[in-house]
């Protein structure tokens, strides 16, 4: 394994009975980069992280974390990683400070060192003022910041953040992003998310995972560029008959009804053809627009494409 790599996965696979949750994943993550594993619910993101954190054994394949094999060196790996699980994973009846102090003592800090480290992290995550409050009184965003601080207690070289902003409002989400951005270049961070915006804003590289398989990989810019040819047209009308939708589906890869109206996606949409086709069914178009694909659309396109193959 190259010294520049923090994580190297080789054909890593995990099966639960007949279900293959992670299927032959090969990924390399460089030291110091923020890497996002992006995918819908049930795609295999958390299972991948659990294998890398030595919580689950892979059915086949291997992975090396900072030079250590996940199947042989779990004790060593657990000393050098920090993990923030998908749920907030905090002790609700302890105070913010007690949670951090507990983690410090589990990692073997002496009392004085633990106190200093806890203070540093409370300041860093802007939780000093709430340090003596029971965690159950904190907001969702604060609990997430505490979770991040707990993962950072041992100052690990490698951080695993499983859906770090799940369920947070935009303000709280940006607060977490600010914390993550502060570590760019200093720590390797593998985060899972199903928010495209998050992967776009934070990551050096992104891998899109669907049904346990990696379906796309690159920088956020590369992923968007690869699908730049995609066009999206949205048509709103009182009622669009099913036969009309079916007809469009024969010509374009993605046609679906959304809250905005009928959304048609494709690489070469023929404007006149679509409009004529819709009007030929007696539909009176109320409103029509062309949209620029966002990273969300790129993601949806990749996931849908993979689903139809």
């Amino acid at each position, binding site marked *: 394994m190259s010294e520049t790599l923090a994580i190297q996965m080789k054909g890593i696979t995990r099966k639960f009975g007949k279900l293959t949750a992670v299927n032959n994943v090969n990924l390399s993550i460089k030291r110091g980069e923020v890497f996002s594993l992006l995918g819908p619910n049930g795609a295999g993101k958390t299972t991948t992280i659990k294998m890398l954190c030595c*919580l689950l054994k892979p059915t086949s394949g291997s992975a090396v974390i900072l030079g250590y094999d996940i199947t042989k060196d779990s004790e060593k790996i657990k000393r050098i990683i920090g993990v923030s699980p998908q749920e*907030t994973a*905090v002790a609700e009846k*302890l105070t913010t400070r007690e949670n951090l102090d507990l983690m410090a003592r*589990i*990692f073997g800090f002496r009392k004085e060192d633990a106190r200093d480290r806890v203070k540093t992290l409370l300041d860093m995550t802007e939780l000093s003022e709430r340090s003596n409050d029971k965690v159950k009184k904190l907001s969702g965003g604060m609990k997430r910041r505490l979770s991040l601080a707990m993962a950072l207690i041992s100052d690990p070289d490698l951080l*695993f953040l499983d859906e770090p902003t799940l369920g947070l409002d935009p303000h709280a989400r940006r607060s977490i992003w600010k914390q993550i951005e502060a570590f760019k270049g200093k720590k390797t961070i593998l985060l899972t998310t199903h928010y495209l915006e998050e992967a776009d804003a934070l990551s050096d590289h992104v891998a899109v995972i669907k049904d346990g398989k990696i379906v796309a990989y690159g920088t956020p810019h590369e992923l968007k560029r690869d699908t730049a040819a995609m066009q999206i047209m949205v048509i709103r009308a009182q009622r669009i008959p099913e036969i009309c939708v079916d007809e469009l589906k024969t010509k374009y890869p993605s046609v679906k009804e959304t809250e905005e109206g009928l959304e048609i996606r494709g690489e070469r949409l023929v404007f006149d053809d679509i409009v004529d086709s819709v009007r030929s069914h007696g539909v009176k178009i109320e409103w029509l627009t062309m949209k620029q694909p966002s990273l969300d659309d790129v993601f949806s396109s990749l996931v849908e494409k993979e689903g139809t193959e």
Partner: protein
Amino acid sequence: MRTVALAGRVFKEVYRDRAGITLGIIYPAMLMVIFVLIEGHVPVDIFEPINIMPGITVFSFAFLTMFSASMLARDREKAFLVRLLTTPLKPSEFILAYSLPYFLIALLQTAVMFLTGTLFGAPAGIGYITSLLFLLPTAMICIGIGMILGSLFSESALPAPGTITIVIIAFFSGAFADFKMIGGIIRTIALVLPFSHAVDGIRSILAGNPLSEVMNSLYMVIAYALLFYLLGVLFFKWRTRSI
């Protein structure tokens, strides 16, 4: 050191749960007072302080099952266990940290029940210490059952099996009924389970009889304690492997 840190956290969480402490300590103590007051008006041997005190103490341990099960189920569901499993903690440290604090709670329960019993006329003496030979293994049984339930059920699903366990322990411990009078299948079940042996053993010790008279009961309670604790550990390990 790590075990002490985690055990301290478990103890704090139980201690800070006012509803739990009320149910596990105050409620049994109040029950004992009620039974002793009833006995003052309607003499029933089983409700005399020296007889009701051991039964109520064992009954109070039934709540250890719920404390232990709830903590484990909650830590699983809220992924706190996942966080702990990604730290350098060893499996033995986990198990000790998730069981030792409940022995402290059991000692606290014993102190409160025995103090209450003494205030109402139970004769204090060396028997109070000797009875720990029965009480600690009984607590161990309850902690083991808690680990099993906490591994099997979610926190929201726990009240049903937890309540059934509490009722079984209360009923078959003989705390509130004399099985020698009831007989039949109820008596047989009570004799197969360890709880009535624990209660009878403590009653005998408190009555001043030598320990040798209740050694068979003591062996049985210890055997059950080892069995349920081992099962608890196995279920706990199974659950952490499939987390």
